[in-house]
């Protein structure tokens, strides 16, 4: 496996030389993923909370469909969003297709079920006495739910990290909705796909190494935040 050694050298060279295309792809990957995970958290965490605490008809059905959505292939999400934001789609007027915004929309949709599901299970796994205790001490329902979130914050942090991992590593949504435009919507993963299709395996693998490094750094930062 000569090309593994070659790819290792290539990735080092790219990182040390701060190659413009690589820096741009890293930036696109990270910024799109961060925006997506922020939006997905704003929607997914309350969604998971509501499902975990709430009592409503079809609750089991909602949980099952949430689990199914987690298994949704990224290209299917890409296709659905594509159909909506293409010029011929209902939201075509915004001209979002093949922009970073389109990727944000798609990756948000991708991450919501993950964040919601992890939130749901962390709350299900939490102590059943938290809510009644907060309520009986005179906290309003909203205050009680905030206390519950505080108690399971590690679980919710894990939900966000899992969602981030999924989003930054996926290629289907980024490729279909972003279009792999150089210096604009080219992410680490779509760049890898492109280099692979060009037969530049070593270069692709080098980018993969850089992606792992970036993911490691992000996780270290989150881990650091978690410890505080």
């Amino acid at each position: 496996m000569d090309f593994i050694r070659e790819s290792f050298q290539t990735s080092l060279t790219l990182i040390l030389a701060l190659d413009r295309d690589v820096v741009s792809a890293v930036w696109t990957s990270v910024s799109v993923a961060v925006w997506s995970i922020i939006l997905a958290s704003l929607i997914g965490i309350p969604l998971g909370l509501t499902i975990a605490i709430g009592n409503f008809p079809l609750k089991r059905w909602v949980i099952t469909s949430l689990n199914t959505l987690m298994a949704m292939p990224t290209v299917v999400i890409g296709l659905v969003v594509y159909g909506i934001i293409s010029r011929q789609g209902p939201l075509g007027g915004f001209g979002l297709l093949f922009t970073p915004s389109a990727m944000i929309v798609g990756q948000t949709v991708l991450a919501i079920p993950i964040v919601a599901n992890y939130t749901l299970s962390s709350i299900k796994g939490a102590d059943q006495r938290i809510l009644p205790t907060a309520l009986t001490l005179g906290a309003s329902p909203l205050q009680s739910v905030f206390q519950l979130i505080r108690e399971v914050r590690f679980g919710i942090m894990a939900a966000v990290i899992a969602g981030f991992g999924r989003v930054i590593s996926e290629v289907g949504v980024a490729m279909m909705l972003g279009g792999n435009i150089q210096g604009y919507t080219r992410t680490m993963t779509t760049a890898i796909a492109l280099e692979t299709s060009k037969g530049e395996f070593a270069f692709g693998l080098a980018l993969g190494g850089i992606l792992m490094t970036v993911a490691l750094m992000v996780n270290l930062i989150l881990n650091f935040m978690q410890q505080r």
Partner: protein
Amino acid sequence: MKVARFLIFGVFAVALFYQTASAQERLKMSTTTSTQDSGLLKVLLPPFEKKHNVKVDVIAVGTGQALKLGEAGDVDVVFVHARKLEDKFLADGFGVNRRDVMYNDFVIIGPKGDPAGISKAKSAAQALKSIAAKGSIFISRGDKSGTHTKEKELWQTAGIDPKGSWYIEAGQGMGPVITMATERQGYTMADRGTFNAFKGKKTDLAVLFDGEKGLFNPYGIIAVNPKKHPHVKYDLAMQFIDFVTSPEGLRIISGYKVNGEPVFFTYRK
């Protein structure tokens, strides 16, 4: 339900904000993978972008999909290579002002030993016939690209409906198909530009049949019809088309070389 609508709106609001944060004007072009993978666009686009202070967003897909993007109005200009499909695109009113830009040719490549003996063939159709007769592995793009369209034409000329375990429809771009043919030691049809970029280090396959008129591979550039899609940047698209077909643009194209060999040829004026 109200909450859900609010959240959907919120996602789009943020997405739009992100979108408008970059103010530079952008021209969207869908093109075939060969123009991008060969590296031509890297030298062709920057002079235009500098001159007009615009960014050209390249979406590199198969020709079939590139034209579909034009039909839907998701791009402003298309740069492709499948004359028949282009003509239909124009006839249906989706595009206007098609211009010839450049050409190269298709080649049939295969293992150096040439088990099907196609290097002695008189025509491309005959070459395909002997591949089919011998049952040698043939990798087809299978993705409705310009190359795939041309390949299907040739099978038709040969009077063969390719089917069987030897005929593999990859459904991938030119690069992966050459890689696949190399791994399986099979035949395939490729555009010369992409093959030249792979030749040597990335593949040990060789050109076994070329030089026929029927393998001519012309590239055309078409503006998306503003009457069908009022939002397209027609003026900018025309500026780009004018630039590509200007003496300066053509000089860049004919001067572009990979491994010391030209990839695309321009028409003599």
